[in-house]
């Protein structure tokens, strides 16, 4: 079915110079923050396709934000631009001096969107937050997002504060991506069961090239971790190391990557490995040599189950999981059945 291998049209809009192309380059083209100085102004619309999680292709329309372009989008190009939109990402520059005018443009765009694709998701990023003094950030962001909401018509808008210089950019985009993945509920159900089986404190699924958090499961103990932005920080750390590895092995950041990473410390053990073609799995388990090895083994087996099922169905689906109604019946489920069976076999060595 074509509906499952959907292309999703994502519009990236906002005032000229607000940072749309910069953040796109960082998230999808493996730029580091200081590289974006090289980017010039976007002329008209730049299209790019981003393959994400196997069956999801983002069709990204980066729309140049100069006034002349904005007018054509709203007038002659109106039908072309605003039809079939799955997501609108609108970027506000926090430093802008003409807030009212920005909001007017935004409102005009929202009207055009509700005319052609009333079911689209709308995300607003309040960008360049690093330029605001830390103590005022929350207040200014709250004010601004209230104003944005009041001008958003019938759409339910999610707003994020972001900056390319810290992990907030990853947080915002992870939030956006999270909304777009089709079979997320199934994935999460699997991960929850899996995390419980291997006694993991936390299981995170990262997208391969962007290192954005796709989804995560945290146990009751893991919830007590005082660091709330750890997922975004992890994205940042791993991406920085990927750049270092690329530099020193003479390849491009896009083709560099990790095969596997094991870390054992007295307080926690971490495993990072390829899970599906497009994802890394990141496990945090309490210390204990035997149970750690067991968790790693189970992860490998669950992965085998996944790939076997993918070959069987031939759908090329990133997550060929059994349908929800058979998932609990573990004789049937591929990934599920393996996780269960071996979990009992190798688990609890004491």
């Amino acid at each position, binding site marked *: 079915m074509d509906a499952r291998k959907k292309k999703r049209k994502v519009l990236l809009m906002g005032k000229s110079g607000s940072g749309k192309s910069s953040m796109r380059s960082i998230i999808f083209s493996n730029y580091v923050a200081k590289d974006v100085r090289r980017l010039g102004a976007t002329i008209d619309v730049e299209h790019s396709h981003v393959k994400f999680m196997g069956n999801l292709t983002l069709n990204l329309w980066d729309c140049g934000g100069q006034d002349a372009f904005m007018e054509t989008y709203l007038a002659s190009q109106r039908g072309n631009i605003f039809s079939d939109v799955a997501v609108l990402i609108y970027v506000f520059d926090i430093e802008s001096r003409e807030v009212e005018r920005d909001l007017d443009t935004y409102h005009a765009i929202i009207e055009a969107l509700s005319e052609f694709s009333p079911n689209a998701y709308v995300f607003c990023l309040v960008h360049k937050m690093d330029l605001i003094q830390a103590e005022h950030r929350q207040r200014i962001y709250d004010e601004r997002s209230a104003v944005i909401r009041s001008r958003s018509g019938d759409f339910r808008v999610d707003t994020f504060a972001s900056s390319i210089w810290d992990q907030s950019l990853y947080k915002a985009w992870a939030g956006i991506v999270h909304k777009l993945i089709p079979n997320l509920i199934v994935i999460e159900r699997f991960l929850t069961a899996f995390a419980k089986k291997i*006694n993991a*404190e936390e299981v995170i699924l990262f997208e391969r090239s962007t290192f954005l958090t796709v989804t995560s499961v945290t146990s009751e*103990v893991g919830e*007590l*971790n*005082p*660091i709330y932005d*750890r997922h975004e*920080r*992890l994205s940042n*750390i*791993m991406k*920085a*190391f990927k750049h*270092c*590895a690329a*530099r*020193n*092995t003479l*390849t491009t950041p896009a*083709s*560099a*990557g*990790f*095969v*596997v*990473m*094991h*870390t*054992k*410390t*007295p*307080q*926690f*053990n*971490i495993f*990072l490995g390829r899970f599906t073609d497009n994802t890394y799995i990141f496990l*945090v*388990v*309490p*210390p*204990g*040599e*035997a*149970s*750690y090895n067991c968790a790693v083994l189970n992860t490998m087996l669950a992965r085998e189950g996944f790939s076997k099922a993918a070959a069987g169905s031939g759908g090329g689906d990133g997550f060929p999981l059994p349908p929800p109604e058979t998932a609990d019946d573990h004789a049937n489920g591929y990934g599920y059945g393996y996780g269960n069976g071996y979990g009992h076999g190798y688990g609890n*060595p*004491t």
Partner: protein
Amino acid sequence: MPPNETLFLESTTRIQKDSIHSFMDFQVWDFPGQLEYFESAFDLEDIFGSLGALVWVIDAQDDYLDSVARLNRTILTVQQFYPGINIEVFIHKVDGLSDEYRTDTFQDIVQRISDELSDAGYENAPVHYYLTSIYDYSVFEAFSKVIQKLIPNLSTLENLINTLANNCGFEKTYLFDVLSKIYIASDTRPVDMACYEMCSDYIDVIVDISELYSWDHPVRKRLGDQIQEAESHVVLHDQTMIHLMEMNKYLCLVSVIRNPEAKDKRGLIDMNCRTFQDALNEVFSRSWEEGSTAQEGESAAVSK
């Protein structure tokens, strides 16, 4: 501190003494460039008496003749009274110079200093030169070399690492001080900047991740026994493996392995590293018994 933030550092106005407590205790004295310490107001014995190494920083992008002249005066005095002090010259800020110009500057400075020294009759003065910049890893490399000269049992450590690296097929092995990311010993194969960069960045990764997950809470309980020291390795896309093992509170051993078979022999590698760890701790405990690592002083004289 990232390099681009050093812009906001103010100029040093008095002698700053920083103590570094690590596998061996250092004291770094940061001298203001404009200070004339040969005046009678300063006690030479107090400054140079317990000194291990003198680091002199020359701005390669500026007119350095003045600085070189002062350095010469300093070297002559130091050589006269304290011949045991290593003199390390950092030719700094070379990132702004083209390759050719960089070599010219380097040779010019070396020439001027060695001429002066031989005129004064010092043939084999312990003066060493380094090209450094804060925008790459060269300054870490240079400081590593400076510190290494002060370690009493460096050759023992190097021998141990060589044995380990040869037997395990490591491409390059470093013994790092985790806090400063200075390496205190490495195997004696040629220096490879790429390896150093990856190793040092990998330490960052592990330290950063540890920060995220090392929280203390009574409900966190372990699932079984495990070795006390941290151990980690990563396999990159081209089958290169970076292996990291904590040696003691301050040191960790980081190796780059390019042999694709290493993946399957991790148990053996781990065991060899543990043996190395035992040997290392023995070396250090013995030197402490003798009390030979009394506090080593070191000073950095920053010239404009």
